[in-house]
């Protein structure tokens, strides 16, 4: 749809040179008399009196993240069409993302109950994002769950195109949950939609309870904040309530859980959250209101 006037015109829509039917990310060229394609290139001599073209303004009026957002929307459609729920798990390096995933997969994914509930199909698959190495993917693979590692090289975040390639390789079973472990970074991944159903932000107690204040974009985008390494609370100065209230000031609808992926404390709440319907896990204020009638909401405010 044209972002200037809201009209719909599929003609001439391109993303990186590829035609995209049904979506228009650029303003309709018909509304800008100067942006229509010229029928001759401008580098050759014109052979007429006017040898200076007037300055042209080309209107775009599109999001800078339009390209990523389009690919993310495609991913979201692809995932929803297969009944797959993707969760974008983000945190600083070393907060325990992989430990939480390994424990979750060990305790949930391969139990007889989980396999029966999913009709014998694998209920989980994992995408691991790191700048380098397959260390994390190797840890996940050891649990028996399908995993694909994305190495971003110099990149500091996963983007929708990377997830697309990862999903092509992973080929997750319909109906499963894909856990996407983003590159350890509390800044950049917040901006890049991957097509996930929800964003999970993990903060560990050793990082300090002021993380939401320091990295407001990440916490404002979160649907669930998991405070990890609760077993270390006696040894560090970390005020759980302060951290949770800062996160809620940034996003009043966010769910907060306190867990220890090492000892297993609090993981019941995490497993319960994982089984909630998609509509109930979206806590991002930008994605709409809190879920009225959600009787489980209290579950995530008590530790």
């Amino acid at each position, binding site marked *: 749809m044209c972002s200037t006037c809201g009209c719909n015109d599929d003609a001439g829509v391109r993303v990186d040179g590829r035609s995209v039917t049904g979506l228009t990310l650029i303003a309709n060229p018909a509304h800008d008399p100067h942006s229509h394609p010229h029928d001759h290139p401008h580098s050759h001599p014109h052979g007429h009196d006017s040898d200076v073209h007037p300055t042209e303004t080309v209107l775009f*009026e599109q999001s800078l993240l339009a390209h990523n957002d389009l690919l993310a929307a495609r991913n979201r459609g692809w995932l929803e069409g297969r009944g797959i729920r993707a969760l974008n798990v983000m945190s600083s390096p070393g907060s325990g993302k992989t430990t939480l995933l390994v424990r979750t997969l060990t305790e949930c994914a391969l139990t007889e109950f989980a396999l029966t509930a999913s009709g014998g199909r694998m209920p989980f698959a994992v995408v691991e994002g790191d700048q380098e190495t397959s260390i994390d993917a190797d840890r996940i693979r050891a649990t028996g769950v399908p995993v694909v590692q994305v190495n971003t090289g110099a990149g500091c975040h996963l983007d929708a195109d990377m997830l697309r390639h990862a999903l092509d390789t992973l080929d997750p079973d319909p109906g499963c949950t894909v856990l996407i472990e983003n590159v350890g970074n509390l800044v950049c991944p917040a901006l890049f939609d991957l097509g996930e159903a929800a964003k999970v932000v993990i903060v560990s107690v050793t990082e300090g309870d002021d993380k939401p204040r320091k990295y407001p974009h990440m916490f404002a985008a979160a649907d669930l904040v998991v405070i990890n390494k609760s077993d270390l609370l006696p040894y560090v100065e970390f005020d759980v309530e302060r951290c949770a209230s800062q996160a809620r000031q940034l996003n009043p609808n966010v769910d907060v859980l306190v867990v220890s992926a090492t000892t297993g404390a609090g993981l019941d709440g995490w497993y319960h959250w994982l089984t909630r319907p998609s509509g109930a896990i979206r806590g991002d204020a930008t994605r709409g209101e809190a879920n009225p009638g959600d009787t489980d909401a209290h579950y995530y405010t008590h530790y």
Partner: protein
Amino acid sequence: MHELSIASSLVDTIRDRTGERTVASVHLRIGQLSGVLADALRFSFEIAAANTALEGAELILEQPAGRIRCRTYGLDSGLVDQFLLCACGSADVQVTAGRELDLVAVQLAAVEAAG
């Protein structure tokens, strides 16, 4: 660092439309709640635009301040930081400005023909 990804994508998007025409200026709207730093974006844009028709183009940045509307009392107010709080203390607010991250328009340089 995400500014570099954004700048590269910006250069690609513009070149898709304007080809090899020399670009004089690029007009962006970067809200103060958007998570994109203007200085970092300028720096990244120089790198991304090097050796393309956008090299040397001026970046014109419009930076709308954050604004919220309180759902409790319907008050509109500006923001001084990232915390989405109304003066009444309520966090039940809707962001009405400041999250913009838009490519508005591009000015192409006048072309002098060789003949």
